[in-house]
């Protein structure tokens, strides 16, 4: 079992991430599976009854397409093919702020320490840190900054609505 960061702690992951090639059988067979979004789109009717279920999106898949089905998922995982690809920073904010998703939003793929502070601000609450990196070490970045200017998921008001002289 792999260690992940969830709610600012390193814990053992209960979920199994299925690859992009996984088929319906594998999805139905696996307990607590995080399935690729394409599989969900293809076999929605058979998968709807599975509980709990997670889904993951590639960085070019839009959360709008998932919005109506969010109630089926306890986890939405967003894949970072490379850590410099910031598309899912927007996805996470949209999931939280526009679609009011309250389940877990997990960063998967090329996930490393120096992105975590930003990710957390966008609404991520779980991080599957790259296998060759230390999740305990990565925790430290969640507190990189003690003050932030912008409103985001973690802080609903921008600093200009919070400043006290």
């Amino acid at each position, binding site marked *: 079992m792999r260690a992940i960061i969830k709610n600012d702690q390193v814990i053992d992951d209960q979920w199994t991430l299925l690859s992009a090639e996984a088929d319906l059988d594998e999805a139905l067979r696996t307990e607590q599976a995080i399935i690729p979004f394409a599989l969900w789109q293809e076999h929605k009717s058979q998968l709807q009854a599975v509980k709990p279920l997670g889904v993951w999106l590639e960085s070019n898949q839009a959360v709008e397409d998932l919005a109506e089905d969010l109630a089926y998922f306890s986890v939405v995982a967003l894949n970072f093919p490379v*850590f*410099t690809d910031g598309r899912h*920073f927007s996805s996470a904010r949209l999931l939280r702020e526009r679609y009011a998703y309250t389940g877990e939003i997990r960063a998967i793929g090329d996930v490393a320490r120096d992105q975590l*502070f*930003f990710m957390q601000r966008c609404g991520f609450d779980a991080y599957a840190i790259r296998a060759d990196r230390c999740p305990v070490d990565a925790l430290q*970045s969640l507190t990189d900054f003690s003050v932030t200017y912008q409103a985001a998921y973690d802080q609903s008001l921008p600093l200009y609505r919070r400043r006290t002289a």
Partner: protein
Amino acid sequence: MYIYDNYDQQIVEDRVRQFRDQTRRYFAGELTEDEYLPLRLQNGLYVQRHAPMLRIAVPYGLLASRQLRKLADITRKYDKGYAHITTRTNVQLNWPALENVPDILEELASVQMHAIQTSGNCIRNTTTDQFAGVARDESIDPRPWCEIIRQWSTFHPEFARLPRKFKIAVNGCASDRAAIEVHDIGLEAVHNDAGELGFRVLVGGGLGRTPIVGSCINEFVPWQHLLGYLESILRVYNRFGRRDNKFKARIKILVKALTPTVFAERVAEEWAHLKDGPITLTEAEVQRVSKHFTDPAYLELSDQDQELAALDAEHPGFARWRSRNVVAHKKPGYAAVTLSLKKTGIAPGDVTEKQLDKIADLADQYSFSEVRNTHEQNMVLADVEQRKLFELWEVLREHGFATPNIGLLSDIICCPGGDFCALANAKSIPVAEAIQERFDNLDYLFDIGDLDLNISGCMNACGHHHIGHIGILGVDKKGEEFYQVSLGGSSGREASLGKILGPSFAQDAMPDVISKLIDVYIEQRTEEEHFIDTYKRIGIDKFKERVYASNN
């Protein structure tokens, strides 16, 4: 000038700590080269030909004298005693050692400075008019808006890993000295018919490999919605901008692919959600920030036209300097003075530590302790009493800042090029120098008149060659350094991109090529025409004929 409060200070101090640790992890092998790269880039740290290059942010070009002294100090302690003013009004050090950079950042933080987001794929330093707040033709002071944008864009969590770099410029004047038409976002502060303040928004301008003039996607965004609208644009870009090809990743490519109309619709859809939310700006915040940009304690003076004219008559050098380097000021009895960093033989935009200290003294003595960097790579004392101009001129001459060439051919905008930059195809500084040497006769320079000459060492266009009346671009021709010349670019209102003259030239041919171009202009011009006007009237052919005919 904006003064940090505890919040602002905390953020730069947290950054120093974070970067110190990132650098430690890099040296300890916990971060690979590839992982450290975007982290150091977003802190302005490039690794270049000789050493890392550190780009220090100068938000919208404004510097206080104590900051200048700190910069002078840093160049002495950690570098080789000089600094470079960039075309985006930042300050660059060419020789710091990587392991010293955290200490440099700590020193910068002690004077409310930083290197945050001066490089990398993020929102960069917001730029504006170097005469903001003092220009006679200004309708709205852009500086408070620049600061509001600076704070919004600093460590914006959603836009920390954009497809590519992102540059915003703001203008509030009849003329456009901020080149807003060639930025990713150009903002023009305007009043609508009802007298309300808002912003005209241009998107998708830019130079580099694919130069494009920006398109207006909204004629009037009320000021309360400025940040919400910017956030909408950035979100559309972050999600849909291309990431498969670095050369197609700027927002201009997305705007072009979608068409400006469709792009505007996408932004409007996003904005429909954000509008009137918490990101809406408050009157209180705008006032809080604006308080830092109120007029300094100006004296009640009157214009010194007669006195200055008398001095002109007596001292032709002063007259020349005044006609080029001094501009009108909104306040009677004051003037804005540009210090030329374009003395022949000195790399355009370079200043020594002694000069930095001297400029700090002059700022204290003559201009309320502030200076501005210009995107033309000069510096400005914006609030000088006219009655002290003569005395100031004498001091400036002594220190090498009084070259009366602002806006003339020898006021060359030039990137660091092959002498420093690892991306360069060719050197740019020696070309600038050779041209300056060729045109060192002041009478002739004055006779040629207004002319923007820009040089970039490669198509990244840091020297903005596309918008020079004469643009020079370093190209690689079978491993040798050559130079391509373009004509007819211009920044400002109705910006235009230069047209390529023809096959490129060897470095030693460049002064002759420029001479021939100037000869054609002198022969063809009417009395009131500047170079660009003549070019627009007669077109490129006559220039082309002259330059290439004599090549045979």
